[in-house]
């Protein structure tokens, strides 16, 4: 791993930011239009974590747009990253943990692509992923930390992880390179047309990812007015000037969950695990054909998941509001 390419030079970071249109302007568009903001070869950070607030609708659009050679990073990668590998959109996933979920065992798709060296699963500890995004958000080139030392995880990163002796205390510290993704995909419960986003429930690494990224695509369950945002600005977690696109997509994390709106579509996740058990490649291709390439729209995709499944996920999701 070349150290140079890991960290965006500070001058470039500042210039790229200055060049963005950061005015308070409307930026609502369709999934297809937003997909054009992602270029082949980009580093794309995915918001949410594991089965939660996964920006699935935007990933679905990128796969349908046949993007290529994306490097994908996420705090914990799940089935969405399986599908990014199986569709050929990505050959490189940077994350701390990669499988659909503990209850489904180790992902056969991840295993196929990594064990046959068709793709790279670059492993960092979970806190290290977070501190890399945070350093990117802070505009500094690295963050010192006290983990990954003495482990195979740290050793395997080669030049990706450096150590230094603290100039104040003389202690040995790990240095994590800042991560400034080209694009961040983040799904939220609500935002306005300018991109002021309010999040409910767990925030994961989304705030740091939004601040670190060079472009942000927000998908949202609801677009609300700027007036409504201004009544509760303390609830706003992502400011408009970091955001480049706003796409309203209902049930936009399906088959994963969106806090307070729907829980994961467990039966569908069972179906995916089942389809990819025997023959991971064929199973994933069949799955992509049925759920990614055939549907005419996101609504058509949701119809394929089934009305019963949608209602069941929503009933469970909203139950957090019950006493």
């Amino acid at each position, binding site marked *: 791993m070349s150290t140079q390419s890991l960290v965006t030079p500070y001058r470039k970071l500042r210039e790229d930011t200055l060049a963005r249109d950061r005015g308070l302007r409307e930026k609502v568009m369709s999934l297809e239009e937003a997909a054009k903001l992602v270029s082949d070869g980009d580093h794309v950070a995915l918001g949410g974590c594991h089965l939660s607030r996964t920006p699935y609708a935007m990933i679905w659009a990128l796969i349908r747009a046949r993007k290529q050679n994306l490097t994908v990073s996420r705090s914990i990668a799940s089935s969405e990253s399986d599908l990014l590998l199986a569709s050929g959109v990505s050959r490189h996933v940077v994350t701390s943990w990669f499988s659909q979920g503990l209850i489904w065992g*180790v992902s056969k798709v991840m295993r196929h692509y990594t064990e046959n060296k068709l793709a790279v699963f670059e*492993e960092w500890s979970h806190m290290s992923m977070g501190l890399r995004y945070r350093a990117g958000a802070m505009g500094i080139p690295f963050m010192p930390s*006290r983990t990954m030392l003495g482990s195979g*995880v740290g050793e395997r990163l080669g030049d990706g992880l450096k150590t230094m002796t603290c100039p104040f205390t003389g202690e040995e510290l790990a240095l994590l390179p800042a991560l400034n993704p080209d694009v961040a995909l983040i799904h939220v419960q609500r935002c306005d047309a300018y991109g002021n986003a309010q999040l409910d429930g767990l925030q994961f690494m989304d705030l*740091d990812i939004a601040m670190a990224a060079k472009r942000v695509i927000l998908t949202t369950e609801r677009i609300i007015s700027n007036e409504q945002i201004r009544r509760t600005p303390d609830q706003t977690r992502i400011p408009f000037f970091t955001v480049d696109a706003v796409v309203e997509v209902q049930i936009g994390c399906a088959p994963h969950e969106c806090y307070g709106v729907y829980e994961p579509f467990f039966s569908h996740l069972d179906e995916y695990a089942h389809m990819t058990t025997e023959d991971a490649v064929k199973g994933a291709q069949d799955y992509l054909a049925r759920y990614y390439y055939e549907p005419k729209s996101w609504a058509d995709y949701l119809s394929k998941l089934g009305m019963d499944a949608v209602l069941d996920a929503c009933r469970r999701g909203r139950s957090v509001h019950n006493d």
Partner: protein
Amino acid sequence: MTKHQSGGTTYTASELLCVMAARLLKDGQTVFAGIGVPLLAATLAQHQFAPHLTILFEGGTIGPRIVPGELPPSTNEQRCTRYANMVLPITDVLLLLQRGYVDIGFMGGAQIDRFGNLNSSFIGDADNPKTRLPGTGGGNDISSLTNMIVAMKHEKRRFVPDVDFITSPGWIRGRRSRAEAGLPEGGLWRVVTDLALMGFDEETREMKVLALQHGVTREQVQDNTGFKLLFDRKVETVEPPRKEELATLRRLDPDRRFTA
């Protein structure tokens, strides 16, 4: 499903792990818990004797209250936030470990060695693995920064002389090697299995049997371990799970999702 028996009571290996691990916790502690046995054990301790014990979840939750029958399937979903004191970004909840607010980190394990190093990344050579496993998650952070309890099934293929890959460091190569690697705090404190309770020798940091599960012999523990174990001078036999401990567990996990 392995059935264990004591008196008139039967229980599974997972239930045994939960009960034994719970007994190692103390009231007032802050426990960073993984999903499954660690979470159940910490919740059992809260119900039995530790009402002031605080659970932290990697997804960003401080002090949730677990709803019986609604155990979260991972540490990152909305079920983890029920009746919590606070939710934080993931990075910040993990930084609580680095700051020193956590008494015990508590995880399951796939492969462990005589120095308590854990592997959840590769089976076989990392460059040409037989199996690519899901990886560290927060495991490396937790094991680097706090005192750890690991709960796992006791099998020879899981208890190996040296792990194929150190995902989460224990005592590394023993003696002072952990501190010398830049990890001055924490370390693997206890390993709980369906056969025994183990700690680590203060000097050499090799795994040492402290107590045997009810009805288990020293030979059985050694036969199911891929390296030579140390035995404490006074190896006791632990009291089998009590009826009220099992009843609480079964109330928490009525569908036996984590205790089958």
